[in-house]
């Protein structure tokens, strides 16, 4: 009896081992090749080849899978963007049907929207747009109820793995605490990219996000520009164990150092909220009545600081970070002096796009650091960020 079962188990085991390869890098055959012309869209080719504009995902998937074995084929990162001269792989109508019927289950685990920050809404919307563009992605959204709730995020990630998630786009609540969880993703051969807040893990293929230090530096330099050398500045900080926050603060100090500005006080609070920023601003203004500028790590805190300054009858240079709608409006109205715009939608879009690049067999093509860009928003250019 036992002798019969053991070989059977071995055969089943061997079959199981081949499964991931089957789903990830199915050998794809091109019915024909196509070279991209001017004014081409994937949907245009799709209509020509398959009689429907919505069958285009198959072309993108087939081209990328082909690229993995033959780099003369193009690598499509964003299905909305193809360039003249790219070589596309057009699968047979039958293969196209199979490719289009495949579902790629991707989880986007961010730090909102429970964190009370509209920023995360934009990240999620960006992710949804990218998922829609790929046509074959089922994108799930999750987030711990608070930005610092590491344990809940770990639980969400582990649960997602058991329910068959194939790719992870992650905004890490902590630099290192998620590492052993991410190791499980590695073991399951599920690709991971981090967005906005990095995890210090070799598992992730790329960190896609704002260079927070560069943004912080813009804050500091703008204070220098407005107030000149020796400006007296208070820093309103947040949860410093998060890499993104620590980078912002370090960047702001670097920017302030360019004009020898004085950091007269640094205070921090973990809720990153309007109420939190307001209280710290009150305390800074009391302890340092000569303070001229306040730099906050996000817009909620900056708006709170602005309310505190108004109540105290003071006009301070207050600079936020994130370019949330309310903050940009305040900048335009002359309330906040400036805020830093990130491209949160880009984080969502890039996150999903690069995971799809990995899932079509091209993980090695992914750069380990992808910048989504920062910009200083002042009264002069606020209109274009509203």
């Amino acid at each position, binding site marked *: 009896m036992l002798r019969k079962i053991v070989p059977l188990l071995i055969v089943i085991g061997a079959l199981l081992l081949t499964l991931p390869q089957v789903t990830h890098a199915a050998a794809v055959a091109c019915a024909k090749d196509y070279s991209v012309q001017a004014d081409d869209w994937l949907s245009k080719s799709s209509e020509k080849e398959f009689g429907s504009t919505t069958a285009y995902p198959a072309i993108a998937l087939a081209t990328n899978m082909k690229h993995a074995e033959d780099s003369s084929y193009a690598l499509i990162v964003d299905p909305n963007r193809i360039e003249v001269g790219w070589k596309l792989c057009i699968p047979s109508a039958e293969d196209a049907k199979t490719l289009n019927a495949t579902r790629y289950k991707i989880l986007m685990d961010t730090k909102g*929207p429970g964190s009370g920050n509209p920023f995360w809404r934009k990240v999620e919307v960006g992710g949804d747009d990218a998922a829609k563009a790929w046509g074959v992605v089922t994108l799930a959204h999750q987030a711990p109820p*608070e930005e610092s709730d590491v344990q809940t995020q770990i639980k969400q990630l582990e649960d997602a793995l058991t329910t068959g998630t194939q790719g992870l786009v992650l905004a890490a609540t902590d630099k290192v605490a998620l590492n052993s969880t991410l190791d499980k993703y590695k073991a399951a051969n599920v690709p991971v990219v981090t967005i906005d807040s990095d995890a210090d893990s070799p598992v992730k293929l790329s960190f896609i996000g704002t260079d927070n230090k560069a943004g912080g530096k813009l804050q500091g330099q703008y204070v220098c520009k407005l107030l000149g050398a020796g400006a007296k500045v208070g820093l309103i900080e947040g949860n410093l164990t998060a890499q993104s926050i620590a980078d912002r603060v370090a960047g702001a100090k670097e920017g302030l150092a360019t004009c020898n500005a004085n950091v007269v006080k640094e205070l921090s609070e973990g809720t990153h*909220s309007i*109420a939190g920023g307001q209280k710290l601003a009150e*305390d*800074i203004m*009391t*302890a340092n*009545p000569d303070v001229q500028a306040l730099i906050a790590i996000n817009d909620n805190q900056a708006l709170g600081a602005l309310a505190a300054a108004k109540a105290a009858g003071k006009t301070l240079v207050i600079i936020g970070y994130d370019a949330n709608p309310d903050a940009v409006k305040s900048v335009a109205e002359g309330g906040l002096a400036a805020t830093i715009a990130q491209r949160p939608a880009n984080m969502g879009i890039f996150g999903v796009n690069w995971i799809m690049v990995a899932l079509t067999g091209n993980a090695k093509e992914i750069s380990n650091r992808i910048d989504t860009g920062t910009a200083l928003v002042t009264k002069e250019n606020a209109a274009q960020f509203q």
Partner: protein
Amino acid sequence: MSQSGTTPAATPAKTAVQLRGLGELFERVGILIVLLVLIALITIVERLANGTAYFLSIENFSNIARQIPWQAPLALGEFLAILTAGIDLSVGSVLALAMMSTVIAAHAGVPAIPAMLIGLAVGAACGAVNGLALTRLRLPHPFIPTLAMVYIARGLTNLLSNGTPILRVPWEFRVLGAGNVCLFTFECTPTSLRIPVPFIVVVLLFVGFGIFLTRTRTGRHIYAVGGNPQAALYSGINVNKILTLVYILSGALAAVGAILLAGRTNSGEPQAGVGTELVAIAAVIIGGASFFGGRGNVFGVFIGLVIMGVIGNGLNILGVQPFWQQVAIGVIILLVATLDVVRRRTNRT
């Protein structure tokens, strides 16, 4: 107030004025001494370490008077729960839900006063759920229903707001939460002494509840239920009714805090009140209430709250590094509570 340390239900109100000696006097003002020592300590350290005197200034005291009020109703609600030997973990989350409901109502065009009433109703409803779950479902301890409410109310808040803050509230909120009354001058000038309106609201609230707890039948029943539920039951008090009332009041008080905070921050914030239940509990315990119920008074709670406010503000003014602040707050809570225990033990002998 007049009857700290004893069960008001057991002592006729009139005899309270008589002091039973120095010990009782000390017990009444002891918590005040702790506060004064704390203030003196921070002032001295600031003078020695930084060479400044910002902490002990009129501006800073009106500063603290603006920072405390929104937490005060929560501490009061927490006090009612602890008075009945219970606890209300949900005050912070209920504050957020009430804040979001009232601000959303105001943005939808509901006039300010009805919008505030909506907030109060939401708070009271959460409290009612807590109270009824405790008394009707017979859950073993208020810890359980209020713990559940922590998540329910916070989740509903996020659902209502989609997780994003809503800016701007009607001026009536602003007056309540951020207005000032200037003393000695008809119009406010930069030099006039400002008393924050929310501080006045809170003082009135505490005086009102002080009178309610010690001078009305229902108020004394609350003490009795906490002091000895069996005895209370045998003496004909409807214990379940009193308990439900206590949690409804706690919920409604959290909503009062929500209205003050909405006015202060000019917004509705889904993150508001995270961790505030711990501040409230700390204030109540520092203020001399007993976890076993039946002991404590609103004056003590108020001073407990001021102590918590002074600690946070003082450490900020001193510029203590943020991570050390967390440690310091914990140590100070431990010290003050220990001091209170020692004080009571000496009184008894």
